[in-house]
C-alpha cells in the first residue's frame, strides 16, 4: 500500500503548456452509474508460449472514455485488440476467459466477425487511409456495410461522418482529392470518420496521437470528448497527461496484469497500489 505522504505529492498532474489548448481539465465524469457495455472476465492471452495477459477482469462503461495506460509491452494494446478479435489474425494467438459485448460472449459460437467489428470500431496508431479519395474512403466503408446505396444517401452519410470527426469544414470542397493529400492529423480524423461511418457502439483507438503534433493531438482529444456523448470510447495511450485530460476511467496494465482500474481522478490522485503511484509519478516508464 502506498504511503499517504507520497499520495499528497501526486495530487494534481501538471500538463504544462497544453493546458491552454485543453479546456477540459476537470471534465471527468463519474462512471458508477454508467452500465458496462464491454466486460472481460479473467482474460488471458498467449502468443505461442509467451503469456501476454493474465487474469484481466474489467468493465468498460457506456458513453464514457476509458484509457488503458501502462509502460511499453504491458499488454494494453493486446487487451484492446481482443475486444474486436483483431488478434484472431495472429496464428499463435490463444485466449482464455470471456469477453462480453452487450451481454454476449464475443468469442462464442456463431458470432459473426463482420457484425462484431461493425459494432466495435478501431483506429490505429499510424493513420491508415485507403489509397483512394477522401470521399471514397468513407463511401467504401458504407457500401461494404449496406450494399448498393443511392448517391444522395451516400453523400449524406459521408458528410455526417466527416462532420462528426470534425473534418468536414476542412475538406468539403476537396472530397475527391486523394486521402494522402491530407496532413497526418487530418488523415487520422479521416480514419475516425471512416470508423464512425458504420455506426459502431464502441470506438477503440490504439495510441491514435502517437505520431501527431500537439495541435493535432489537441484537436483529436477535443473530438473524442464530444464523441463520448454518443459513443463509448476506449483509448490506449502511453501519454499519461492525455489519459488525465480526457478519460473518465483508467485501467493501469503492468507486465500483462491489470493492476488497477478506477475513476481517473481517483487513480491519479489516490492510487491504491504502489506500482500505480510509481508509474504515474514517472518513476518508471
Amino acid at each position, binding site marked *: 500500500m502506498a504511503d499517504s505522504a507520497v499520495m499528497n505529492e501526486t495530487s494534481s498532474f501538471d500538463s504544462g503548456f497544453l493546458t491552454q489548448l485543453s479546456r477540459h481539465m476537470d471534465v471527468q465524469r463519474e462512471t458508477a452509474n454508467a452500465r458496462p457495455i464491454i466486460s472481460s472476465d479473467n482474460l488471458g492471452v498467449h502468443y505461442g508460449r509467451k503469456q501476454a495477459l493474465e487474469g484481466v477482469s474489467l468493465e468498460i462503461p457506456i458513453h464514457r472514455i476509458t484509457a488503458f495506460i501502462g509502460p511499453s509491452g504491458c499488454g494494453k494494446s493486446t487487451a484492446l485488440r481482443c475486444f474486436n478479435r483483431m488478434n484472431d489474425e495472429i496464428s499463435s494467438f490463444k485466449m482464455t476467459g470471456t469477453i462480453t459485448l452487450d451481454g454476449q460472449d464475443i468469442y462464442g459460437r456463431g458470432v459473426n466477425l463482420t457484425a462484431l467489428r461493425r459494432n466495435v470500431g478501431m483506429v490505429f496508431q499510424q493513420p491508415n487511409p485507403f*489509397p483512394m479519395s477522401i470521399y471514397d474512403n468513407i463511401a467504401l466503408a458504407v457500401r461494404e456495410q449496406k450494399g448498393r446505396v443511392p448517391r444522395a444517401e451516400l453523400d449524406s452519410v459521408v458528410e455526417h461522418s466527416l462532420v462528426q470527426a470534425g473534418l468536414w469544414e476542412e475538406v468539403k470542397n476537396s472530397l475527391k482529392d486523394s486521402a494522402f493529400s491530407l496532413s497526418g492529423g487530418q488523415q487520422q480524423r479521416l*480514419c475516425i470518420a471512416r470508423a464512425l461511418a458504420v455506426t459502431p457502439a464502441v470506438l477503440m483507438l490504439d495510441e491514435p496521437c502517437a505520431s501527431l503534433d500537439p495541435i493535432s493531438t489537441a484537436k483529436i482529444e477535443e473530438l473524442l470528448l464530444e464523441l463520448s456523448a454518443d459513443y463509448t470510447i476506449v483509448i490506449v495511450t502511453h501519454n499519461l497527461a492525455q489519459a488525465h485530460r480526457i478519460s473518465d476511467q483508467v485501467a493501469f496494465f503492468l507486465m500483462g496484469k491489470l493492476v488497477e482500474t478506477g475513476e481517473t481522478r481517483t487513480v491519479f490522485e489516490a492510487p491504491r497500489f504502489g506500482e500505480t503511484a510509481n508509474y504515474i509519478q514517472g518513476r518508471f516508464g
Partner: protein
Amino acid sequence: MNLTATNRRAQITSILGTVACWAMAVLVVGVCVFIIGYLMQQGASSISWKFLSTDPSGSIAEGGGGGVRVPLVGSALLIILSMLVAVPLAVASAVYLAEYMDEGRSLTRIVRVGLEVLAGVPSVVFGMFGLAVFTLPALAFVSAAGADNHSDAYGRSFLVAGIVMGIHVLPFIIKVAEEAIRNVPRSYRSGAAALGMTKWRAIRKIVLPAAGPGIATGIILGMGLVAGDTAIVWLTLGGTMTMAADAWWAPSNALTVLRGSGSTLTTFIYYNSPAGEGNSIGLAFGAAVLLIGLLLVLNIITGVIARYQARAGRAA
C-alpha cells in the same frame, strides 16, 4: 591533433574504384547503343508505310520481297492470345501466394520450387512440349486437322502458340504480380479488417486496385517476352508467311485463322536472315527495327506507370 593529414593511397584507390565502375557502366551502355544504332542504320531504310501494310511475298524465287504485315499482325495476335491465357492464371496465383498461402507448410515449398523450375525451362523445350501435346488427336480442335496421311493433329497454330507462350511467361508475371501485392502496406488490410471487411472483399476492393500498377507493369513486361520469343513460335506456329485465310480480318474467318499457321516478327526475321530461307536481309533488319521499337514502347509505358504510381503517392 592534425586535421589536414592525408592518406594518398586511400585517395588513389578511391578514385580508381570510382573510375572503374563508371567505365564499366559506359561500356555496357555503349554496347546497347551500338547494337540499336547498327540495327537502325541497317533497317531504317526498309521501313515505309508500304513495308508495314503489304504482306510478305512468299516466293523464294523473287528473293522474298513484300512487306511485313502478316508477321506484324501475327505478333499482335500472339501477344493478345498469350495474355488471355496468362493474365487470369497469373493474377489468381499471385493472390493465392501472397494472401492465402501459409509460408510454413511443405506444400508451399513445393509450389515455390515448382514455379522456379517452370521459370527456368528453356523456351525451345516449351515449344517441343507444346508440339508433343497438341499433336495428340484429341486436341485437334486447337489446330488444323492432320495432314494427309497422319492421324496426328497438325499441332501448330496461333491457338497452340498462344497457349504455350502463355504458360511460358506465367512464372514471370506471377513473380511480379506477387511482389506488387506484397508491397501493398499491411495497414490497408488492418484498416479493412477493423471495418468488418472479409479478407476476400479487402483483396478485391483495396489490395488488388492498389497493386494494379505493379501488376500492369508485369503484364507489359510479359508482353515484351512474348514479342521477342522465337523458339516457341517457330515450333508451335510454323513460319508460313500467309495467314490461313486470305481475308484474315473478317470475324467469320476468325476460327480458321486462329487454328491456322502464320508468323510473327521474330520468325519473319529468322526466315529472311541468311540462316533461314530467304536472302532478303534488308527485310530482316527492317523487322528487327520494328521489334526493337515495339519493345521500347512497352518499356516506356512501364516507365509512365511507375511515374504515375509515384505521383499518386501510393506509399502510405
